[in-house]
């Protein structure tokens, strides 16, 4: 079947029933699902996501949005992809019970992608909390390949909640760790060493964040105060992933001082932080 035609500005998306190649647990709650699909792997860009069915039946009903974690290659060609999942509810708990060989309905890749820093001299600073780390190793790989200096700030409640540290290490990307319980790295929030680093940094920086909303909002305050560009990857419950259900909207800056809803699945998941309204305008 040929690639589904998208609008000219969008990459193709594929609706496929794929066989799970591998399920790999990172810790008690987080696991990686890997699939073989050269077409999805070839189309996927860092920051994009996929809709994955949690079961073969209609319980639970809706597919789950998951960031593309890895693009797996064979002889240099895209061969497969993986997603990084945290077990948080019914759907992800069912996914954690999948076995290699099981079939999973997958739609994607969906949404937009991270844009690299506008100028080649900028350092990309990636700030992540918990499972919000999922889209960043792929992005870091692209940045390193393109010659951008890249740095990671990884936060979580405990050592167990820090994800992807080995990925950044393998890429040679320096990573600063922070845990709220002090079990590893900085004892406190990831935004504290971030602010300290930016204050001591004399090069241009572009900030990227993905994680809990309070973290992203705090990162935005830090980036905005220093007039740094900041891209944010958002998530929300969504029914379709392609822009028709209108459930994943967020308030954003509109024309002439107004505001408008935009869809995380279609106009996002990556937004320029200057477009986002962290407080709902009706409040």
């Amino acid at each position, binding site marked *: 079947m040929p690639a589904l035609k998208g609008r000219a500005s969008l990459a193709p998306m594929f609706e496929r029933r794929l066989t799970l190649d591998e399920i790999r647990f990172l810790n008690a709650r987080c696991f990686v699902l890997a699939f073989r699909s050269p077409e999805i792997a070839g189309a996927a860009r860092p920051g994009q996501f996929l809709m994955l069915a949690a079961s073969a039946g209609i319980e639970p009903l809706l597919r789950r949005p998951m960031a593309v974690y890895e693009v797996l290659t064979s002889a240099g060609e895209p061969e497969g992809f993986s997603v990084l999942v945290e077990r948080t509810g019914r759907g992800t708990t069912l996914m954690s019970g999948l076995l290699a060989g099981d079939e999973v309905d997958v*739609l994607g890749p969906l949404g937009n992608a991270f844009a690299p820093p506008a100028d080649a001299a900028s350092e990309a600073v990636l700030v992540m909390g918990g499972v919000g780390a999922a889209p960043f190793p792929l992005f870091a790989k692209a940045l390193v390949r393109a010659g951008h200096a890249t740095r990671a700030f990884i936060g979580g409640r405990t050592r167990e909640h820090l994800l992807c540290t080995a990925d950044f290490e393998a890429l040679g990307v320096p990573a600063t760790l922070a845990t709220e319980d002090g079990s590893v790295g900085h004892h406190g929030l990831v935004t504290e060493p971030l602010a300290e680093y930016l204050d001591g940094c004399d090069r241009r920086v572009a900030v990227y964040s993905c994680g809990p909303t309070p973290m992203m909002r705090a990162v935005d305050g830090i980036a905005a105060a220093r007039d740094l560009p900041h891209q944010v990857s958002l998530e929300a*419950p969504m029914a*379709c992933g392609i822009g*028709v259900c209108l459930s994943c909207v*967020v308030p954003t800056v509109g024309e002439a001082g107004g505001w408008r809803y935009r869809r995380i699945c279609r106009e996002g998941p990556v937004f320029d932080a200057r477009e986002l309204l962290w407080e709902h305008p009706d409040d």
Partner: protein
Amino acid sequence: MTEGKATDLGVEVGELRLKNPIMLASGTVGYGEEIGDLVDLNRLGGIVVKGLSLKPTRGNRPQRIAETPGGMLNSIGLQNVGVEAFVRDKLPNLRRYDTRVIANIWGRTVEDYAAVAARLDQVEGVHALELNLSCPNIKEGGISFGTDPKQLHAVTVAARAATGKPLWVKLAPGVTDIGVLARAAEEAGADALSAINTIRGMMVDVERRTPRLSTIFGGYSGPGLLPIALYLLFEIRKATPLPLIGIGGINELDHVLQFLIIGACAVQIGTANFYDPTLSSRVVDELAEWCQEHEITSLEHLVGTLRLPGQG
């Protein structure tokens, strides 16, 4: 498979002919742009676009959906681009397809409905209008257009006067006797009835002790709706001879056949477009195969063939 004559899947909804009885329901496919990347809309009987109002509507604040056993709740708040932007920006793309385009319309007053219907009356590429009656009438103390027979009658009369295009009325399920509303629509000049819209429901976040939806309650849809929709269609069938379009919980061909046997001449697939976006086109193929296996050459021979106990 039995080698029989090829089945003509064409159906007539009043004066409007559809190439097959499978349509996509309003609110689940936008204006056909995104779903058109996944499904060949040329293969379907029709597409009912997201409910249009006179002016653009922003919709409700998030949280707008909640998953439930057997389905989902939504409280989108009828977000849409407005009828002008639809005609200008969305319809040209839909006109490229060889399928029927049905404009679902709504308003907050009787005059709003009439104005949207009048705006679409002469527009090429819109083949029918479907009245969405899930909104309260703000001029009549917030009584819902869909649950009060007088309101339903008034709004249908007004829309009827504003357009010569086929006029469908989409009935809501939360009423004591849906037959009364079906007859009110018939008397007001509706050409067909579609049923059912979502049914009200709510879900609670136990940890926070808050409703899951920002608007407290929302519209329940999905597979769990099927038996309710089938029964209400049965009641509507008894109440009026108008052509009927079955909606509610369709998740496979068997569900389509149940609606047809009860008496719907066509159906709309809704929530399934979210979790299984290619279901509609698969069901068209499966319906053709099923008819051939059962030596049904025209769907006229299937629609309304329900046999009741005691009727042999």
